């Protein structure tokens, strides 16, 4: 997904690190990685450690980090939009206008990354970056620990026990789509996009599924 961007910018002291939040492991992610034909880092995060460290809640999200290792844009939606919520579920298609808007939003995000790498534009000053950080609550911290335990139990054949921990994690941290969808996918591949998922998305009402980045 990011290969074109990386090819264009790699001579500018720039790196892309793509992290697969994939509790089924590397072999499950491999077909997508092979298809991407990428030469940036493609990492596998079976325990969603990155999401714990950076308080991420969905995919794709991105964090921009400068040459000194400082976060200059906290986690935000990386090029996806909510247009999919209006798609026709039978045909799985979006209207031409929605498709166009979706592409425009993605292009604008990619252009922002380009501008940052070449000119420094869109990097936030410390106070502005801090102001957009998502705050971790004790409930979220507990959810992360339960999710971690759930992944381990499932990986060790203790499915029912693992599911119970994951369900409790989603109850404690309902805004984490990653935890909910990963648990659904571990239950059965495809379940992360099931009718239950769609119902959950529609229950958001006016709230965004992919909050747009404030560029």
């Amino acid at each position, binding site marked *: 997904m990011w290969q074109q961007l990386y090819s264009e910018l790699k001579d500018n002291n*720039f790196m*892309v690190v793509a*992290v697969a*939040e994939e509790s089924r492991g590397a072999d499950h992610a491999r077909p997508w990685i092979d298809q991407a034909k990428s030469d940036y880092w493609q990492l*596998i995060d079976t325990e969603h450690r990155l999401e714990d460290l950076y308080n991420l809640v969905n995919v794709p999200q991105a*964090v921009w980090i400068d*040459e000194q290792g400082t*976060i200059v844009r906290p986690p935000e939606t990386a090029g996806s939009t909510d247009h999919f919520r209006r798609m026709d579920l039978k045909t799985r298609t979006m209207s031409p206008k929605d498709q166009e808007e979706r592409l425009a939003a993605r292009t604008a995000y990619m252009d922002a990354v380009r501008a940052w790498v070449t000119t420094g534009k869109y990097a936030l000053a410390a106070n502005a970056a801090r102001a957009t950080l998502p705050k*971790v609550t004790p409930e979220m911290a507990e959810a992360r*620990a339960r999710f971690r335990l759930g992944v381990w139990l499932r990986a060790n054949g203790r499915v029912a026990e693992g599911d119970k921990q994951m369900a409790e994690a989603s109850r404690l941290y309902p805004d984490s789509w990653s935890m909910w969808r990963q648990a659904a996918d571990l239950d059965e591949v495809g379940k992360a996009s099931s009718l239950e998922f769609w119902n959950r998305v529609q229950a958001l009402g006016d709230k965004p599924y992919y909050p747009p980045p404030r560029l």
Partner: protein
Amino acid sequence: MTKILTPTAEHDVAARDGLWMSPADAETVTGWMLKPEGMCRAEACVPLPASAVGTNEVDLAAFWTRLGGPVIVSDKRDVWALGAPADERNAALEGLAAPDFTLPDVNGVPRSLSQLRGKKVFLATWASW
């Protein structure tokens, strides 16, 4: 043996009655060392109640709770997860220093964010699901 999952590692430890274990094991699992003033790491010490310290053993669950971190146990009480305290995560993020991590690439080669110091990094997640 009792299995303990921390945010970045897995440990097998001889523990009894929950997470009572030797101070040496407690340090291996958490990085905090038992001293007369409590559990200490670098300059920081967290005082422990007398009920959480015994003869050459310490109640790691009591310490972790005191630290503000979640302590979760499996139904069979053989696998524990110690989560990062919310305050610790918030303080780390508010400092804006990107938390370092090491994860394997698709061929199992470990890669650390800190290897990329000196470059701008676009760190993005994705998933098959």
